[in-house]
């Protein structure tokens, strides 16, 4: 069917497969560094220390697994929603090559210590410049496809796609402004508190434009596809979209509460973070209400299970996040393990569950076959869910415990614990976190095996048919 429509689907296959490869790298490195925190003997300087590997973990996760699969599904979704084949398949092919070169270069340069130090914008300027080229190629291709579309009305997913394309471009260009010293070294163009404010405007909106709008585009497309019933409310989708992309950009400074940036910037960030609950939950309700009369599919349709658990974690994430951005609560848990617990509920729970569903839906269709094993998909689901919950819950407890110890005082007002006394109490939690990571990794391997067998099975079928 797809090939008859003339859709550029080979490129979608390429992006899906490579994003899974980088996703595996991200989780492998993540599990390894979680062991390094618990067992410092596992640091092998200079290349394999926690300080150099953590950026590789985050970059492989956000850019390799996240952006890679978003590229796949933006191309897939856009063609279908516009009923138009991709504007330039050749450009998309070049984009796939460039994408893999960039991610591989990122891993190598970060291991070598070429690092701008700004979180999620670590890549030195030559690699960052390649990222810009990559994004321009991608954006032009998608926008041109939408411009020459054959379906007049643009569905919600396309709005989120367009917002992502422009949002990421603005954020990345501003925060990567650098003063180059050599090919491997540059300094940020901004200084001190200004640099901090720019960085967290970027950092938090990377969450908006990479970890929220693309998965929402994918969710809004694949939930109706998987359930066979339309989205509950188009109007709620409209309101949620515009308020979400309006409010998000004000919230970066909630990463800088109590830091030396102007108070009013912090207060605005706090207020808008709380207001963001409304558009976030509009998407959650849109998901839930679409399931009216369809809840039995949670038992029968594994895709729905991934999608609905995904949107549920999005809902929890967007309640927990705003609560953390309140000054008093931030004073308590900021800088503790609570925050990695929060982040991983979003990345492992929300983003990845939605991506798993999208991959399970598209791969069999792209290869004209059925999924190799629904049973294994269910095993995958429960393993990644268990792994992620162990991770997040232990980190929340660890964060609260450490925060309480750090704040404990003696009757005379002096502090009760030194820093190291609070830190050594975290080892048992770090062991649990590493265990959660291993379980998650096991789930991911089951997923990769299932997809591999699906594709391999399709190829043998095709050969058999030809013979």
């Amino acid at each position, binding site marked *: 069917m797809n090939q008859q429509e003339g859709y550029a689907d080979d490129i979608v296959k390429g992006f899906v497969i490579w994003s899974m490869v980088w996703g595996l790298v991200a989780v492998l490195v993540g599990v390894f560094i979680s062991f*390094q*925190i618990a067992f*410092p003997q596992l*640091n092998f*300087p200079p290349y394999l220390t*926690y*300080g*150099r590997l953590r*950026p590789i973990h985050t970059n492989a996760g956000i850019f390799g697994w996240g952006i890679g699969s978003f590229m796949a599904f933006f191309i897939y979704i856009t063609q279908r929603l516009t009923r138009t084949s991709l504007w330039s398949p050749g450009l998309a092919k070049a984009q796939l090559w460039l994408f893999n070169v960039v991610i591989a270069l990122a891993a190598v340069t970060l291991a070598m210590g*070429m*690092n*701008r*130090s700004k979180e999620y914008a670590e890549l030195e300027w030559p690699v960052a410049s390649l990222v810009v080229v990559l994004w321009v190629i991608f954006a032009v291709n998608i926008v041109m496809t939408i411009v020459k579309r054959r379906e007049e009305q643009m569905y919600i997913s*396309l709005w989120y796609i*367009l*917002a992502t*394309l*422009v*949002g990421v471009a*603005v954020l990345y260009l501003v925060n990567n402004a650098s003063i180059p*010293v050599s090919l491997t*070294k540059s*300094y940020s*163009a*901004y*200084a*001190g508190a*200004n*640099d*901090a*404010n720019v*960085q967290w405007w970027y950092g938090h909106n990377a969450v908006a434009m990479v970890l929220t709008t693309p998965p929402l585009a994918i969710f809004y497309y694949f939930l109706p596809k998987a359930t066979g019933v339309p989205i509950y409310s188009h109007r709620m989708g409209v309101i949620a979209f515009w308020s979400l992309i*309006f409010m*998000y*950009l*004000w919230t*970066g*400074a909630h*990463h800088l509460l*109590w830091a*030396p940036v*102007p108070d009013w*910037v912090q207060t*605005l960030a706090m207020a*808008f973070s709380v207001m963001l609950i409304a558009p976030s939950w509009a998407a959650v309700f849109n998901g839930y209400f679409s399931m009216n009369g369809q809840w039995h599919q949670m038992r029968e349709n594994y895709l729905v299970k991934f999608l609905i658990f995904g949107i549920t974690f999005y809902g929890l994430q967007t309640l927990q996040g705003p609560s953390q951005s309140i000054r008093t609560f931030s004073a308590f848990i900021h*800088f*503790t393990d609570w925050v990695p617990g929060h982040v991983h509920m979003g990345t492992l729970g929300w983003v990845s569950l939605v991506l798993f569903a999208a991959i399970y839906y598209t791969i069999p269709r792209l290869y004209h076959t059925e999924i190799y094993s629904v049973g294994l998909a269910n095993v995958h689901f429960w393993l990644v869910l268990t792994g992620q919950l162990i991770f997040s819950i232990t980190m929340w407890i660890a964060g609260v415990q450490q925060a309480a110890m*750090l*704040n404990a*005082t*003696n009757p005379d*007002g*002096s*502090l009760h614990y*030194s*820093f190291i*006394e609070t*830190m*050594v109490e975290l*080892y048992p939690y770090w062991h649990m976190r590493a265990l959660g990571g291993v379980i998650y990794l096991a789930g991911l391997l089951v997923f990769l095996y299932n997809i591999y067998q699906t594709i391999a099975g399709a190829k043998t079928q095709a050969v058999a048919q030809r013979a």
Partner: protein
Amino acid sequence: MIEKKPIIFLLLATATILVGTIITMVLPFRWINDPKLAIASVKPYTPLQLEGRDIYIREGCNNCHTQTVRPLLSDTERYGEYSKSGEFVYDQPFLWGSRRNGPDLARIGGKYPDAWHVKHMKDPRAMVPRSNMPSYDFLNRPLDTSLSEKKMKALKFPYTPADIQALQGKSEMDAIIAYMQKVGNDIPWRKTGKTEVLGELKNPFQDNMSVLPEGQKLYAEHCAQCHGIELKGEVGPDLRDMDQPDSKVFATIYSGIAAGGMPAFGDTLGKERTWKVVTYLKSVHKH
């Protein structure tokens, strides 16, 4: 409607994104780093300190260490004077960090002597038992100075040819320690923010043998890294057969010696536990 006009949609979405961006990110440039908020004593980095800072960035130290002391009791008591924006005007990039796997370093400058840092970088657990910091012994290698002058020029920091000359023969360890000693130490907070002990300094545990085990335990946790588990001295001096009065020993531990690299322990130990350490110290003799 605009859902049928992609280019107009794209422009509107861009405008929507730019509102919050301009108000909370662009406009603050007008106020942050305002010359009126400048702190005269805060100086740019020397070539050696800048190289040290670049090593800090290269090794990703900011993944585990923050560099902002918040105006909160648990921060100021533990680390020192809260951070001010004027202290960071030469920081490109800023290194405030986001997670404290290790302690905050915003006031590390001058806290410990260089010798402490050398030993700690080489084997963190020898100085801080059960620390999970990796060993950075490999920094004992020659510093690459080929870009040093270019870096100073790029950041428009003042330097003399002699400063660049002085880099010859330095190791990466020298550089990172030079940087550590500068961090947060440009304002005289140790003197102005010093904890003063009021009232009569009388040891409530004098000749009270029952507190010796606890005093010894506290000593092992907080003091032994520098003075040795047997008090023979290492980074700090030999503490056996101390002939100073209890009140003097108490004041040194409680308030530290700003000039001599002895940190203040008053905020961590409090009065009672400090007296217990004093009692233990006075009980130890060479023979």
